[in-house]
Structure formats: C-alpha cells, structure tokens
C-alpha cells in the first residue's frame, strides 16, 4: 500500500502472509491424512476501526494473498492480523499519512 494519500482517495492494500494452508485433505507418503493447518481469519483495522475481515476455508491457496481497498480518511495505522486454527497469530502494522 502507499505510504501517503489524499483525503478521500481510495487506497489499494495488498497483503500476503507465509503459511502452508494445509487443507487436511492430503495424505502423507504412508497414506495417513496430514492434519489441517489453515489461516482461519484475516482482519485489517484502520485507526482502530475494522475495515476488512475475511474468513478463510481450506480452498484458499498457500500463502494467503488479498487485495482490497480503503478510503483514506485520517493519518493512522493499519493493523493486519492473521489467525490460524492452531492459535497462531501474526500481525503487521503499516502507517498511512493522509494530506488534504
């Protein structure tokens, strides 16, 4: 995403996280199912307010990638949070500076 924007502009946000997204439907080399391990939810807050929430199922590819849009209203942090089904949580913060 850009670091700066004009107030009222719609900003494109691209995110990707490294994660196996093991679907739980695959078998290992001795024929046993490989346990599911997926990112279940991804959220983004902007200035503390939630502006994007995704619920992921096993059909989302390895290293989940998202593009979405946000209207630039104020200079604030965007906080991205990924949560997986084993309690793993990853966060990333990016700052957007908004000018008039």
């Amino acid at each position: 995403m850009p670091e700066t924007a004009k107030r009222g502009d719609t900003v494109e946000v691209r995110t990707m996280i490294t994660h196996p997204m093991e679907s739980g439907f695959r078998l290992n080399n001795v024929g046993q199912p490989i346990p599911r391990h997926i990112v279940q939810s991804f959220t983004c807050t902007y200035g503390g307010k939630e502006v994007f929430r995704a619920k992921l199922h096993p059909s989302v590819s390895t290293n989940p990638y998202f593009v979405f849009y946000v209207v630039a209203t104020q200079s604030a942090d965007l906080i991205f949070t990924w949560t997986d089904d084993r309690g793993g949580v990853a966060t990333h913060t990016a700052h957007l500076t908004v000018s008039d």
Partner: protein
Amino acid sequence: MSSADERTRRRQVLRALAAGACLLVVRPAAATPESLAAALRETFGDRPITPGRVKLELPRLAENGNVVPVTVTVDSPMTEQDYCERIYIFSELNPLPRVLEVQLGPYNGRARISSRIRVGTTQKMSAVAAMSDGSIWSATVDIEVTVSGCGL
C-alpha cells in the same frame, strides 16, 4: 503346482492388485452441487439470489489449480446508504463448497477484492454479494483445470 493352480493364483494376485488400485483413487468426497445448495441455503436462507451486479474474474483455463488468481467486483456505490456488506466465493466440486467470505463496508470505497484460491477440478465457481439493502446477487463462471489443486 499344477498350471491350473498357477492360473488361479495369478487371477487372485491380479484381483488384489485391481482392488489396491481402486483404493488408491478413493479421495475425500467432493462437494457435490447438493452440498453447494445446502451451503447457500445455510448462508442465505430462502432469500432469492439474483444473477447480476457481480463480476467474477477467473482464468478460463487454469494450468495449476493450486494457485488460481481470483477477483470479484460488485457493482455498488459503497455509500453509507447503499453498500456491499459481504462477498462470498463458492465452489461446486472442491471438497468443501465454501472458499472465502469477506466483510466490507462504505469505508472500503470500492467493492472489489482479489485473492488466490485452489480449484480441485474443472467446474463452476460462483461469487455471491450480499448488499446492505438485503438483496443478494451472484455471478457464476466455468473454469477448466489442467493440473488439479492437489493441495485440497
């Protein structure tokens, strides 16, 4: 061992091999159109789903079903009065019919999302948009897959 016995034995071995081959191709039950219908009913109840206002962009032919780029664009002004609340992606034949659900609001400015998904086999994929006025819109496209999304 007589040759008749040997033939019987050979037949048994072949039969065992054939049975083994059948076992190898047993895969988790794929989502059938019925389970897709069930998922749609569970999500939207009896509300009508109207084709239109949604554009689902997927490659016509995906060489690698493991990583298929997808973009959903909904025709919505995204104002406080009239916006797209949720976008869903559904699959007809993946092991699970639900692929992705996102929540949006007027703060997004554009009702458009992109991601990368797995497509298990040649099938129809659908995107459904739920609007703030309660209406539900959809788009369905055909996708052909050369190498299956084996990650499923």
